[in-house]
């Protein structure tokens, strides 16, 4: 696929959305429109290449609708969305957009197409018309990157949920995207699977400089993000670094979300006059600073 000659705009951002609006119309049996639901209502988001961005939101906040726009699966009703400079509302861009921003979905079973792991990873490149030798190379590299190479000849049915999601990520990686969108990709996994998938994603972000958009309602997952957008009722209700966002307890509650347990605990400890830093997000860090306080404090 050639990319030359495509008009680019979007100020060099990986993702640039301006006043993005998406409306679903509800229809009755005869196809007449009976109501319009605004799932996304004027969203402005800019993501620089190589960033790790989290989009937080409770059910029905519009975060999944937004995710589907990033992949050209839905088109904006109003406003514009540029992915790596390409206008997603131009349907001739669709294949290029999907190649640039790969998408991992929620249900691991429903996104694996082939009966053998390596053939599933090869599905994307096959569709793009990549030559056979190059596909084999990419499949091997991608499976090694997500740590699933030894399972390449297995049937996906015998893998755990976390392993299946890693295969799905490998399937996206084999398309050589600049950006990966994870649409609640960890929601159906057990804690171990979730940790493995997040670890894989984080490594791809740091090592391969791939832009990550993590869409989730788990607060604990967004701690390592560079920047967080919190969505509520189709709008961006809150944005900032994890520290800035978690501080806004009241606003989070309005969005039907709560700060991570660690943050809540830190807040309570500080209220009880224990002088520890506010921006502690991990268990180990908290234990370390508490031990330090015990040694030096009194």
């Amino acid at each position, binding site marked *: 696929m050639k990319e030359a000659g495509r008009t680019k705009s979007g100020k060099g951002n990986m993702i640039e959305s301006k006043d993005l609006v998406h409306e679903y119309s509800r229809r009755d049996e005869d196809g007449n429109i009976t109501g319009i639901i605004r799932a996304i209502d004027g969203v402005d988001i800019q993501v620089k290449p190589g960033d790790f961005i989290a989009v937080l939101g409770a059910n029905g906040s519009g975060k999944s609708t937004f995710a589907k726009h990033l*992949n050209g699966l839905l088109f904006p009703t109003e406003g514009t969305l540029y992915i790596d400079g390409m206008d997603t509302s131009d349907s001739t861009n669709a294949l290029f957009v*999907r190649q640039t921003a790969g998408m991992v979905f929620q249900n691991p079973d429903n996104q694996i*197409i*082939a009966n053998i792991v390596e053939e599933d990873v090869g599905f994307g490149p096959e*569709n793009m018309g990549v*030559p056979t030798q190059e596909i084999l190379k990419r499949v091997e590299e991608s499976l090694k990157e997500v740590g699933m190479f030894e399972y390449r000849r297995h049937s996906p049915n015998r893998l755990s949920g976390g392993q299946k999601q890693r295969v799905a990520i490998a399937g996206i990686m084999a398309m050589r995207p600049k950006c990966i969108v994870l649409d609640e990709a960890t929601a159906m996994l057990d804690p171990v699977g979730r940790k493995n998938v997040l670890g894989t994603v984080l490594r791809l972000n740091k090592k391969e400089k791939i832009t990550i958009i993590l869409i989730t309602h788990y607060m604990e997952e967004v701690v390592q993000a560079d920047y967080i957008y919190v969505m509520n009722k189709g709008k961006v209700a809150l944005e900032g670094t994890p520290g800035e966002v978690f501080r806004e307890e009241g606003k989070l509650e309005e969005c039907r979300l709560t700060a991570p347990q660690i943050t809540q605990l830190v807040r309570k400890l500080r209220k009880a006059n224990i002088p520890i830093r506010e921006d502690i997000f991990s268990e180990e860090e908290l234990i370390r600073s508490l031990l330090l306080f015990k040694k030096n404090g009194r």
Partner: protein
Amino acid sequence: MLRDITIGQYYRADSVIHRLDARVKIVGTILYIISLFTFSSFQGYAVSVLFFGIMVTLSKVPFSYIVRGLKPILFMLVFTAALNLFWTPGTTIVEIGMLHLTWEGLYKAGFISLRLILLILGSSLMTLTTTPNQLTDGIEHLLRPLKYIHVPVHELALMMSIALRFIPILIEETDRIMKAQTARGADFESGNIARRLKNMLPILIPLFVSAVNRANDLALAMDARCYHGGDNRTKMHPLRYQGKDILAYGACVFYLVVLGIIVRI
């Protein structure tokens, strides 16, 4: 329990037959099955059995494993044999009431059973040595000429392989729904057939709903991975004939020629 069902009982082994191109195996099996119907003499069967024996030895699949394929048709086999034994007119050997056991019947029953057995064993040897993926790939290639009369060959093959992928998932789902309904007092075991079928309804409806939802998800996921039909698509494992495949075609032709000569004599 339901999880153990496998479609296309592939037997994993490393043999010449396993490594053959799926197309050779499909064409070879079809030729073999047709050849079984072209003669009815002992010499002919001797050649067929010998040829099959060589293939089994080469395939490294244990013979007991292949014979298991006969289980489902055991009843049919006994039934046709019995019909032929007693209803063929000719010289009577024994007479039991109305039934006449004749020499001709014995002869005919033997032939027909042998033909059926070889037919089933021959095709199980193919499914035992070919993975479902290779099979769909082979079928796609063989049916390619039909594209010119606008048969969607690529789409049909893709549908077949997706169906294979989702069979275990849907079986597991059925199992789960059944348990959930049993836990709420549903009864699938008692009553006559009509009643049992009616009781299956609470299983089928959720299963259909879930299957449609899954299909919707899968279509989105395929879109997201740039699927846009069979045009401009490349293959990760393209089917390419190699020396051994040509040799295998040669072996099939050799078998047919030998069979022809033996039967004529």
